[in-house]
């Protein structure tokens, strides 16, 4: 039985494909038939040509029918009926543009948002590196005692693990740094990855042209100046010329030979941005000729830090097995070189797998939940509209059922309509998903660079799933309900509508309650976020922010190695101190709310060596606290004599946390000693306590300690905090050394003697405004080295940058909530419109008997009261529960903010009232006579 059916299917398919040929055959065959008939008639004695044609046509019957019937045999019946369904669905959707547009808009936004979030989530949390067989590639982290994952190990340890590990078929190392490539005018600061020789082979990355590195090119002590360039650099600098291989490229001060170009789909490994070229690790000394010691240390010393390590699991080895082996090997190695034993953590290459517990994930999950809720809401809503529509169409459906349409067929027709909507919305949603994810990740994870954010087949699968779900959710229930009425309503329309209320109501009530609940949750969430952002934006950060500008020095791409940087920093600091008009400027490494910060491990005397805690450290000049108006609450402040010394100031939080019951002044903390070779753990004495300020984040005050600026031999790129002084700038001294501003020699000469005497120059004596101070600073820097640039920004910009994530989060939440509100309004409108329509006769009767309009409105309202109250109740509980998760993730959110609940409920109430207005008015305008006549 099976086989003939299969054969018939193939024949059918062939006929379908050779459709034109098939139709021609049939036509010719029928023509032959007609001619034969004509001949037969002619033989029978019919002479008249007209008569002949008529008679033959008559005898022939309906040729078109014959042809269509014959062709119909070949067309699988469902193909045709699906086409019919689609055409019919399109027509019926076109007939109701308001319904169609509302539904489409709701679905497009919901699906678009969801797919975008999924894309971003996928790129961050699920997508591994773009290498061959990525699931077998793992990364090695150093798991510290405090739970921090340190990115990478020393290269010495790497080599030991590489030579001894059996669990990995290959182990690779990468150290990423910035270099300057090209000659003077075309010089460019780029990111370069120093890698071991089989880096590309282990990852399975191919070259577009040329080759990757040979084993000989990565021998320590025998550096060869070769490099492999990225596709982008190849296109940009060499115009994609295959002849680029074999040409040379200047990297810092050495000329490297290009041996290959990497294929375009490889974007590097890790989240530190895409390197533009790769150089063997052993060739690092060639690239950094000015700093041979630190490079040699990095390459050879077991205590040096660090290179990112990744490996490919050997066949049949799990991540856990590799973990065990590496643990063992790492312990052996560290004991043999006398280093503290930590544990390497073997993790997958997905970006978020390495960022556990940084909060971003939670925010992300929340956004995901919210938009999924909106999608559900959209579905509930569209479902609601569809129920109303199905009921409005029950006459039509009844007619179709009465005329013999089977119930499955009618259900299919209704499903086709929702499918058409869902597919259209899904298509546009995917379109949106091509540009939105970039914006989302930039907003949510400002620091992380995601290599690839284009949607892919996973996304398509996800969206198709969403569409199918949406289609089922809002199509199936109404369809089944709509056809359950059978054919009776056609015969007896009054019983039909009464039954409709009975069966339709439970479903509609549930939908209404669901929407109200979800809308309330989203509205409350958005309001909480918005209020949180507002509160933080207006709160006092604890330091002066409005009259302060931050100047940073921009060193040229070439010529500033470590010694030169250190020398320049010293020159600059000395010169700055010598300038009366800039003397009050503060120096620091990172200004408050900067994008970078310095974390140090410290411990208290008497604590075990592995009991270190990580605390934020700021290097500041004595003027720092004055400029930022952070007062000293105990002890003394820094003096110029403290530079490089072992003293520190702590903020109140640190004082409270480390010495809960004692006066911190005079106590010491012990630094871990740093990574510099030979640095012994150093004791630092606490000399004072400063007031808490939100310098490292706006959500809470972290423990912070301040140390004086480093000694002159340490390279240091200072940031300069300039302050606008209200009047004569008392702290700045009586006058500025305006005349000497252009003369570096003079400035330096007078440096040690303090403020120079006024020379009666053309410039204002003291720079009291920020612009003047900035100009003076630029002049000063220019006089020291014209190649160094100065960038000046208000400190407020940092504050705004810091708030951006929260602001964007609140804006997204607001948009989502607004959408939810509109959807809820549509839903409420749908329900009331339905109630009024279904009870027209009853209302008419009541009005004929003297009911007042407000009684009629109350009647309509009462029918949905339970659903409304239930939905709002559940929503309030859900909102309260949900917002508990928001606390601590976003600044300033408090879950029990009554104003948020009141605002959200009020908004929802206004929207609901507006939505009921039209149906209610229709109810009060029902003409009793007309309504009763219908009975």
């Amino acid at each position, binding site marked *: 039985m099976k086989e003939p059916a299969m054969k*018939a299917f193939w*024949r*059918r398919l062939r006929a379908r494909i050779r459709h034109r040929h098939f139709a021609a055959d049939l036509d010719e065959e029928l023509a032959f*038939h007609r001619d034969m008939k004509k001949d037969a008639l002619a033989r029978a004695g019919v002479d008249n040509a007209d008569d002949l044609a008529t008679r033959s046509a008559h005898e022939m019957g309906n040729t078109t029918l014959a042809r269509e019937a014959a062709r119909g045999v070949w067309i699988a019946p469902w193909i045709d009926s699906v086409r019919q369904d689609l055409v019919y669905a399109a027509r019926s959707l076109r007939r109701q543009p308001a319904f169609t547009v509302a539904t489409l808009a709701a679905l497009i936004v919901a699906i678009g948002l969801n797919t975008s979030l999924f894309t971003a989530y996928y790129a961050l949390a699920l997508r591994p590196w773009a290498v061959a067989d990525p699931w077998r590639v793992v990364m090695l982290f150093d798991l510290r005692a405090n739970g921090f994952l340190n990115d990478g190990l020393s290269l010495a340890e790497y080599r030991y693990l590489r030579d001894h590990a059996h669990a990995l078929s290959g182990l690779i190392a990468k150290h990423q740094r910035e270099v300057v490539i090209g000659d003077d005018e075309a010089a460019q600061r780029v990111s370069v990855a120093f890698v071991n020789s089989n880096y590309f082979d282990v990852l399975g990355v191919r070259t577009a042209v040329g080759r990757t590195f040979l084993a000989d090119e990565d021998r320590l002590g025998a550096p060869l100046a070769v490099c492999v360039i990225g596709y982008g650099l190849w296109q940009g600098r060499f115009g994609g010329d295959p002849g680029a291989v074999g040409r040379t490229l200047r990297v810092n001060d050495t000329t490297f030979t290009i041996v290959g170009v990497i294929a375009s789909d490889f974007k590097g490994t890790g989240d530190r941005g895409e390197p533009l070229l790769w150089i063997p690790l052993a060739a690092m000394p060639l690239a950094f000729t000015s700093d041979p010691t630190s490079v040699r240390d990095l390459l050879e010393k077991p205590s040096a830090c660090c290179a990112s390590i990744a490996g490919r699991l050997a066949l049949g080895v799990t991540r856990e097995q590799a973990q065990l082996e590496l643990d063992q090997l790492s312990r052996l190695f560290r004991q043999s070189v006398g280093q503290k034993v930590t544990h390497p953590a073997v993790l997958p290459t997905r970006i978020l797998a390495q960022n556990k517990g940084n909060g971003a994930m939670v925010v992300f999950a929340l956004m995901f939940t919210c938009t999924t809720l909106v999608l559900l809401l959209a579905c509930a809503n569209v479902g609601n509209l569809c129920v109303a529509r199905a009921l409005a169409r029950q006459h039509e459906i009844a007619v179709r059922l009465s005329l013999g349409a089977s119930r499955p067929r009618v259900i299919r027709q209704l499903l086709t309509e929702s499918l058409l909507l869902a597919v259209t919305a899904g298509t546009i949603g995917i379109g949106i998903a091509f540009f939105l994810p970039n914006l989302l990740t930039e907003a949510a994870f400002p620091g992380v660079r995601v290599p690839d954010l284009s949607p892919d087949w996973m996304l398509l699968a996800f969206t198709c799933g969403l569409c199918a779900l949406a289609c089922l959710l809002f199509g199936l229930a109404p369809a089944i309900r709509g056809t359950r009425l059978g054919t009776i309503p056609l015969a007896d329309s009054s019983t039909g509508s009464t039954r409709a209320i009975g069966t339709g109501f439970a479903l509609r009530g549930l939908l209404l309650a669901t929407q109200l609940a979800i809308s309330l949750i989203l509205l409350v969430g958005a309001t909480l976020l918005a209020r949180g952002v507002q509160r933080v934006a207006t709160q006092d950060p604890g330091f002066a922010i409005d009259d302060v500008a931050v100047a940073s020095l921009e060193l040229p791409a070439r010529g500033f190695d470590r010694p030169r940087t250190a020398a320049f920093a010293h020159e600059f600091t000395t010169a700055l101190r010598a300038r009366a008009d800039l003397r009050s400027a503060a120096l620091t490494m990172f200004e408050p709310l900067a994008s970078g910060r310095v974390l140090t491990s410290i411990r208290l005397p008497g604590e075990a060596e592995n009991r270190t805690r990580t605390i934020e450290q700021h290097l500041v000049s004595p003027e720092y606290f004055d400029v930022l108006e952070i007062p000293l609450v105990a002890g003394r402040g820094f003096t110029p004599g403290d530079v490089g010394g072992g003293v520190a100031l702590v903020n109140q939080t640190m004082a409270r946390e480390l010495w809960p019951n004692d006066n911190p002044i005079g106590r010491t903390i012990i630094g871990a000693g740093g990574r510099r070779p030979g640095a012994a753990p150093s004791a630092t004495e606490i000399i004072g306590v400063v007031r808490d300020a939100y310098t490292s984040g706006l959500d809470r005050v972290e423990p912070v300690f301040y140390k004086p600026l480093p000694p002159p031999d340490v390279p240091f790129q200072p940031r300069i905090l300039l302050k606008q002084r209200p009047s004569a700038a008392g702290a700045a001294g009586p006058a500025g050394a305006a005349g000497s501003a252009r003369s570096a020699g003079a400035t330096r000469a007078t440096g040690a003697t303090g403020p120079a005497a006024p020379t009666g120059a053309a410039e204002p004596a003291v720079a009291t405004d920020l612009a003047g101070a900035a100009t003076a600073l630029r002049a000063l820097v220019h006089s020291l080295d014209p190649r160094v640039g100065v960038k000046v920004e208000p400190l407020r910009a940092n504050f705004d940058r810091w708030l951006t994530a929260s602001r964007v989060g609140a804006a997204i939440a607001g948009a989502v909530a607004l959408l939810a509100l509109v959807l809820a309004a549509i839903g409420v409108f749908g329900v009331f419109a339905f109630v009024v329509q279904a009870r027209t006769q009853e209302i008419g009767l009541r009005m004929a008997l003297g009911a007042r309009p407000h009684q009629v409105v109350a009647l309509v309202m009462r029918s949905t009261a339970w659903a409304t109250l239930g939905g709002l109740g559940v929503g309030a509980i859900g909102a309260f529960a949900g917002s508990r998760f928001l606390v601590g993730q976003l600044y300033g959110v408090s879950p029990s903010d009554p104003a948020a609940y009141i605002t959200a409920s009020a908004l929802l109430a206004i929207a609901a009232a507006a939505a009921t207005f039209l149906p209610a008015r229709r109810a009060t305008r029902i003409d009793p006579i007309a309504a009763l006549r219908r009975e």
Partner: protein
Amino acid sequence: MASHDQAAELLPGTLDMLILRVLARETMHGYGIAQRLKQLSKDVLQIGESSLYPALQRLLLNGFVEAEWRPSENNRRARYYTLTRAGRKHLAAEQQEFDRLIAAIHRVLETA
């Protein structure tokens, strides 16, 4: 239908069998099949094109007949249908089934 008043209604499903039976004797085109049926049944069975051609297509689809373009007796291009092996088997089965049915109907008519 033109021939409704004089022509007998066919039992459902029998047309396919009759066509196969006609084709069992010789390869024939559609018009020929109709003529032969009319002639053999002494004008009782007049098959309209709107039944004949769908029936032929159905037989083609099921693989019971094959079609081929060939010159006709008066030298025109006509589509000739040939019974296949499957068609022959099908015809035998159908004929047996039909005989059983007719016999049953007969018995009912005679004894009831």
